[in-house]
């Protein structure tokens, strides 16, 4: 379909800007805009049609099942959209005085308290903008802690398992740490043998998800904790998979010292085609002095932004964090209440239910009870019929499902990582499994159908190499050369 710039016609517009009836004001000539930006020009009806049509070329949770592993694509309650739209939240200026933002501050304070209870840690900063930024914040906190103890120069390494999400190693580098990789054993756990050899006085910490990106609970977690704490190092918990364990087990109780939440995953934020998120960070008391300022503090019935934190690492984002995300996360948790455990139970039940139906037809690299997600391998299909994980993913589209995450974690060849979440009905889980099984039959009987899939979407297999080669990353207007 046309780009909005291709629908544009000179002289059209949707907006009318009020004329304040005052004298026009000067801009120094050499700073004045020389040529107007070629923004779209179209009247409001065309604007609405353009974006309405664009939306129909997109698939969201509201459209159907979206088992994108590691992303926790659960239903986003509609009431939350109404709540963030309350003028008292939506139109509140972040420089408003604390006294005139008590409702917002109370909400943030309550959320901090809730998050602490859920993970069993002592203090929370809501500031980080997303999980990745939470990681960078957490690692920076660890550095500040060690610097404070005079160990920063000594402790330069962060240990990460091969199963880790790409953000973990990337964050390690950006925090100025050196990456040390540890292997995974036959059961999908961290290889303790390998690990012991890699932890020592040079170690700043460990960084893992638990359950891991294989969807498996780290069975040696107690020993791992001893290894790191025994070496004077810290443990970082990537909270991306927290949906598996709320109310069941707590990272703080497992011995983790610092973690980030992905509020947008666990606590149901509309992912908006890529974001926004929130990567709130929780820490054990020893790390609290270093948290970014401001933090919401409570004095009796009053709430305030506490800016004065002398040991703080500083600010990681503007203002107090992505407030709209807090509103939704807080609302979501309040609707579950103390029964939040049930959310995780059903997430895990749903995943195991699907795993049970698919474990015969696909390979299961680590065949254990899974947590909220599971990883299959299409290796067998590839070997026998030449059908790859990508082919399976593309073919699923024709059955009206969003594909799972593919080719991750990297330790599993032809990986298909499936996370159904707790908000899916049994029929949907069944239908997806039927499609997955049907695709296995198709791979056998008519592999071409897979290779050329999808057949029902607006486009099919866009050429990524061609895109990277041409590098057309913006519209070029006709009159350009």
């Amino acid at each position, binding site marked *: 379909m046309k780009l909005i710039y291709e629908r544009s016609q000179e002289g059209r517009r949707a907006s009318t800007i009020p004329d304040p009836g005052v004298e026009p004001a*000067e801009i120094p000539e050499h700073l004045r*805009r020389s040529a107007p*930006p070629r923004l779209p020009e179209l009247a409001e009806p065309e604007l609405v049609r353009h974006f309405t049509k664009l939306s129909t070329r997109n698939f969201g949770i509201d459209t159907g099942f979206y088992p994108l592993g590691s992303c926790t694509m659960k239903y986003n309650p509609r009431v939350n959209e109404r709540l963030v739209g309350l003028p008292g939240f939506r139109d509140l200026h972040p420089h408003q005085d604390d006294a005139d933002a008590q409702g917002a501050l109370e909400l943030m304070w309550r959320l901090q308290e809730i998050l602490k209870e859920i993970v069993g840690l002592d203090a929370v900063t809501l500031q980080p903008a997303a999980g990745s930024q939470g990681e960078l914040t957490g690692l920076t906190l660890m550095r500040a802690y060690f610097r404070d103890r005079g160990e920063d120069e000594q402790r330069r390494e962060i240990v990460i398992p091969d199963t880790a999400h790409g953000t973990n190693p990337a964050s390690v580098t950006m925090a100025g740490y050196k990456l040390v990789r540890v292997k995974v054993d036959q059961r999908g756990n961290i290889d303790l043998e390998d690990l012991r050899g890699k932890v020592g006085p040079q170690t700043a910490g460990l960084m893992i998800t638990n359950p891991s990106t294989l969807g498996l609970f780290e069975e040696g977690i107690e020993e791992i904790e001893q290894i790191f704490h025994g070496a004077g190092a810290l443990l970082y918990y990537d909270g991306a998979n927290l949906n598996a364990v709320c109310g069941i087990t707590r990272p703080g109780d497992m011995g983790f010292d610092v973690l980030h939440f992905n509020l947008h995953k666990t606590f149901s934020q509309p*992912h908006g085609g890529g*974001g926004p998120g929130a990567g709130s960070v929780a820490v054990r008391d020893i790390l609290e002095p270093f948290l970014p300022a401001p933090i919401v503090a409570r004095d009796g019935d009053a709430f305030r932004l506490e800016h004065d934190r002398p040991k703080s690492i500083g600010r990681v984002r503007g203002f107090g964090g992505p407030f709209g995300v807090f509103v939704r996360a807080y609302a979501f948790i309040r609707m579950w209440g103390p029964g939040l455990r049930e959310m995780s139970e059903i997430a895990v039940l749903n995943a195991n239910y699907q795993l049970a139906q698919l474990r015969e037809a696909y390979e299961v690299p680590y065949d254990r009870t899974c947590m909220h997600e599971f990883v299959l391998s299409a290796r067998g299909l590839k070997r026998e019929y030449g059908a790859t994980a990508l082919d399976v993913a593309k073919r699923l589209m024709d059955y009206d499902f969003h594909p799972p995450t593919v080719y991750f974690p990297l330790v599993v060849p032809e990986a298909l990582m499936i996370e159904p979440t707790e908000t899916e009905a049994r029929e949907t889980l069944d239908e997806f499994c039927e499609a997955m099984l049907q695709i296995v039959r198709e791979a056998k009987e008519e592999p071409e159908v897979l290779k050329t899939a999808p057949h029902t979407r607006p*486009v099919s297999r866009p050429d990524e190499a061609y895109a990277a080669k*041409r590098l057309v990353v913006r519209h070029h207007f006709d009159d350009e050369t």
Partner: protein
Amino acid sequence: MTFTSLTDADREAMLETIGVSSIEDLFADIPQALRLGRRLDLEPALSEIELSAHMSQLAERNVHVGRELSFLGAGMYDHYVPAVVDAVLQRGEFLTAYTPYQPEMSQGVLQAIFEYQTAICELTGMDVSNASGYDGTTVAADACYVAKLATGRTKVVLAETLNPQARQVVRTFAPGFGMEVVEVPHHDGTIDPDELRGAAKDAALVIFQQPNVFGILEDAPALAEAASAQGALAVAHVDPMSLGVLEAPGKYGCAMAIGEGQPAGNNLSYGGPHYGFLAARMDFARQLPGRIVGETRDRHGARAYVLTLQTREQHIRREKATSNITSNQTLLALGGLVYLSWLGPHGLAEIGERSHALAEHAKRRLGLTLAFDKPTFREFVVRTGRPAREVIDECKQQGVHPGYAIGRDYPGLDDAIMIALTEKRTVEEIDRLADVLQAAGVGAEARS
């Protein structure tokens, strides 16, 4: 039960399929000692009805810009967000989708991002924009990392007239990046290009802000030229709402342009979520952080959009990635695109001109001493002769928030208030501001 479908019958059938007898069995891999063994200590569950009442009470305790006459700005502005923006963002197909990893499922959002990238490039005069950064502060840190990768240098030079929060964020992360930060002080509200040239020696980049933190127009071309002369990347932190009337950074030699997207299409929302934008000359495309959408063709030769240059990214390059960013601010950036499309070039210019004209009118109408006597854009700092916090408190009693107490960030300006104007403000409202300031003993002679 409200957001799950599990009935007792479902549960039983599912457990049977799995081959376990209870949900508890599914957690067998978790060591007993680590099980919580109690219910979470959270307040009782609320129904949607009760939740709505509770949240309304919280919201009522915030004084939002509809409840007082507000001249607050300082980086976040009360521009009008038209209804079409909400209408588009609330489409479930956009709202509830995630990153377009599978282009066939996500042409809608991919094309929208491509259109957004184009709009940002047009505004800034750049060649390539990413799909959004977190906000206007984090993109400053992003720019540092780009500059390090691109130049191999490690020195960061910041203008003191760059938004203080942006400077703080850079300071937080620079050590991790292996970079050190130098600031160039302002003189009478602006940066001296010659002084900047000196500081920029061996620097990876220089970040300055236009209009700057005081609302003052820097001699941006001269600053960019001073940075470039030293081989440092010139990075302009710009206000999108100024770019209908102020020159595009790409036109005066900047390597990158960054900024806070909020004023262009996002609600204030107590500081977030918003979008940060980051655009660059094509030379730096391979160093940029975050998603970038590119045009290509599909199996049938049809035009299609995909995430491109993914080899920069963490999921491919891991510890060698140009950034760790994954989730970004696409929905807010989409809001920006819808807003900018609603405005069009003329609307954007009009908002710029009219906000600016209102600000100049307010300067005249208030007749107060300016903290710095230099050309400004839609925001300016006045001296009140009294502690600013007191003046603000007194005005707020009258339902007017006169502006930001910038002395918080800049010592020596304790009696200063920064006053921001947008197209939503009117001449009558400026009169009202003058009245309440006068009642607070400020600008007594101003009453006409």
